[in-house]
């Protein structure tokens, strides 16, 4: 078999060196009742590369690739154009097939890009420091709440009704098992909630998403002041990281922790994963942070270099007292993020954000002109909520049959809530052409008529 280098002759000679008659005898510690003497029944035998490619490609062919049709889905995952250089570089074996950089002398490449990643994340979020990434935006959000609990020694988190339902649910799951309280404001499509009113002296943190799940962008400065006045922390979640190229940063608005989904930069949609969770905070909270950190140091000859650091926070040292059980980061996705961000640079990142906003404004204007479509979001970045005169899920299914991926029905994430059933989330990015927008507008017109 093509991935297994040992020949039968090798195996024989190695068994002789070991001094056992067969490989079976190396498994003698396995209880006899559990030893299988032949390959497991009902599973296919090995197959050649061409055959495997055919099988897997046949499954791929049953999906509608977003790039093959007009597509306007967002809700926490966004289709952007990633330069070919990104995928080329992350596939270099020295990155792809390397382990966590525990041996710094032979992993300076990984360590340096993680240091660059941390710096980029700190810069775009407007924070002091960032970690080397977590699994995704939703898990970062839950980790941020737990970190706020540790830092404030409180255990009540207030979640905005504009927080992505997945972020809310992951936080709630952790709350259930880890043992802390979560107060969630009702779904807030109009963006009118008063979160400050929910904060009390036991509140560890307030989590607010910006732009919100329903699209609104908010100036959080006042909220930050109110939260801080109660001794709580403000956690800002960013589900569309491209927005940071245009909006005042969460740091500038007073956030204490910023979590974000980094997928939009460098990473494909991938049906939801793997993505890359960004996590940034203030200097003073560094030792409460979860996740891996790269730090600058010097080598035996005094030259600048990088190492993983502050690992006393981590599970492999602190065991049950660790800040988190997380042991893996999203290294390769973080590399993709770093490379794409390096390519964009100050100029490109800002411009990308402005293009996204302009596309969304154009699309909103176009949809606003349709009968039976009402723009709900009074402000937005590249995604907004519209109210349709029919249930959004049905409209989306009809559009899909016409070859248009028209958006995310809010009911997909708020099942059973009748008040939200007519709402549709529509996102536009730099990848959407005028023709795409025209297709959506005329598709909607037809479905709604």
């Amino acid at each position: 078999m093509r991935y297994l280098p040992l020949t039968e002759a090798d195996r024989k000679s190695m068994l002789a060196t070991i001094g056992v008659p067969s490989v079976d005898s190396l498994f003698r510690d396995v209880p006899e009742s559990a030893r299988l003497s032949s390959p497991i029944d009902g599973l296919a035998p090995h197959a050649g590369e061409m055959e495997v490619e055919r099988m897997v490609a046949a499954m791929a062919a049953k999906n509608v690739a977003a790039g093959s049709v007009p597509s306007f889905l967002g809700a926490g995952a966004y289709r952007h154009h990633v330069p070919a250089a990104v995928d080329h570089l992350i596939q270099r074996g020295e990155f792809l097939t390397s382990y966590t950089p525990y041996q710094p002398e032979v992993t300076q490449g990984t360590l340096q890009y993680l240091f660059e990643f941390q710096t980029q994340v700190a810069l775009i979020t407007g924070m002091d420091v960032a970690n080397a990434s977590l699994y995704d935006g939703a898990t970062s959000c839950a980790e941020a709440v737990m970190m706020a609990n540790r830092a404030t020694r409180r255990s009540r988190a207030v979640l905005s009704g504009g927080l992505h339902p997945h972020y809310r649910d992951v936080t709630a799951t952790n709350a259930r098992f880890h043992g802390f309280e979560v107060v969630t404001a009702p779904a807030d499509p109009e963006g009118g909630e008063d979160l400050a009113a929910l904060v009390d002296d036991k509140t560890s943190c307030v989590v607010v998403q910006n732009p919100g799940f329903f699209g609104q962008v908010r100036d959080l400065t006042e909220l930050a002041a109110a939260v801080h006045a109660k001794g709580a922390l403000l956690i800002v979640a960013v589900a569309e990281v491209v927005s940071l190229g245009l909006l005042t940063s969460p740091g500038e608005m007073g956030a204490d922790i910023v979590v974000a989904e980094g997928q939009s930069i460098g990473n494909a949609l991938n049906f939801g994963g793997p993505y890359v969770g960004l996590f940034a905070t203030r200097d003073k909270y560094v030792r409460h942070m979860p996740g891996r950190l790269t730090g600058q140091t010097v080598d035996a000859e005094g030259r600048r270099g990088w190492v993983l650091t502050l690992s006393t926070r981590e599970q492999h040292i602190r065991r049950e007292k660790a800040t988190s059980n997380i042991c893996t980061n999203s290294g390769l996705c973080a590399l993709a993020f770093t490379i794409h961000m390096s390519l964009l640079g100050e100029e490109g990142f800002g411009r990308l954000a402005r293009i996204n906003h302009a596309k969304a404004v154009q699309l909103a204007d176009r949809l606003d002109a349709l009968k039976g479509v009402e723009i709900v979001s009074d402000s937005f970045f590249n995604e907004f909520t519209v109210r349709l005169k029919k249930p959004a899920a049905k409209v989306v299914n009809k559009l899909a049959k016409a070859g248009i991926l028209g958006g995310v029905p809010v009911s997909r994430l708020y099942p059973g809530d009748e008040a939200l059933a007519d709402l549709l989330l529509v996102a536009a990015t730099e990848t959407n052409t005028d023709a795409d927008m025209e297709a959506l507008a005329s598709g909607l017109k037809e479905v709604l008529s």
Partner: protein
Amino acid sequence: LEEPLIFEQDSPGTTGVDLPEPAVVKSRLGKVRERGRIGLPGLSEPEVIRHYTRLSQKNFAIDSGLYPLGSCTMKHNPRLNEKLARLPGFSDIHPLQPERTVQGALELIDTLAHWLKTLTGMPAVAMSPAAGAHGELCGMMSIRAAIEDRDGGTSQRRRVLVPESAHGTNPATAAACGFTVDAIPADETGRVDVGALKAKLGDDVAAIMLTNPNTCGLFERDIVEIAEAVHAAGAYFYCDGANFNAIVGRVRPADLGIDAMHINLHKTFSTPHGGGGPGSGPVVLSEALAKFVPLPYVVHGKDGFSLVENGADEDSTGKEFGRLKGFHGQMGMFVRALSYILSHGADGLRQVASDAVLNANYVMASLKDVMTPSFEGPCMHEALFDDRFLKGTGVTTLDFAKAMIDEGYHPMTMYFPLVVHGAFLIEPTETESKQSLDAFIRVMRGLAERAKAGDADHFLGAPRMTPRRRLDETGAARKPVLRWVPEVEQREAAE
């Protein structure tokens, strides 16, 4: 060669991405101001390509040499898997597309789930965990949910037994699920002390978390007895499946009495480690736990595949314990793992375990006269030595490891497991050839003999051939510098 940070290569105004002028529109940003300068550097594409190419050249990788890092399973990553994960039908689909437009993706998840269940003999699998530790969390949540369902939410079963030699993630996970951790000692054969374990069982015990093959590279001989005792005490048996590589196709965890086990797709099924992630850690579950799963999951009905995304769904088990991450799991990793699994098939996967164990035992047998194996008898997929052979040489395990670097090898795992002193945990994996192992053995023997011959200086000064000599980790932690700041800010801060 030195490579500056990207921030030190800034050409203001330059960009590596050409974007058109945004259309002129009336901004809809409400009360939020547009931000000012962020501080990102400007580089062209040629500079970025060269920068990251040069950084990559400072890394060791499986592609460049044997990577005997114990418990990490650094095996070959087939390129077919990378190619298939990039098919637009997988890479370019949005997680919230209508289910009719992603039937192939759901089919792939379902197919992979079928393989994982069949290979482990378990009836259910939770696919969404994003990594091994995340899988542990999932499994322990499932156990706690099952206990609460059985005993009521008031269950006082909160103690979890964890062997001393466990991965640090095990106790951290138990704690994250609201459990307390109680350590079980190892016996002199490197395995769980069954007597001590039984003595600790009681009606406040929720579960045991055991790694098998364990972190000494040994199979827990008494595992069936342990499982029975745990079940008799009303607790559940969580198995850390990080080492499933050693037994896949030869042993089904279900046959050992296991209730929950995560599988590191990046170890057993060769999705790439990528410098630290992303991983993927599906968890197989026994009948007793099968309903206690996280959302979402894939089911197959008369209309094809669909996703159960919430408890109100008609296909719901009614016992789901919540959501673990955004969307549905690490799709990109699923494609790679399934590609690997289909390539090997049932026969090839069995051969994987056989060759992994054979390679480790060959290394063990070839080094046992010059190094000191920690335990007797055959090992599984990794060979554990300790530092007794270095006694009096002035060379530590760390020094030895750094000297390996200069010979072209990544160090083994060291100082883990904690049950032996100065551990050397060597996992060659099944994708190393005999020629490759023989070269490695020659080098290891040579170094051992050199240490014993008194040439400590050779080791203390190592590595010498790397882009950096040994790095000051203590200094890094004492005054952490975790990001770059412009020189002017650095100067201001110093003043």
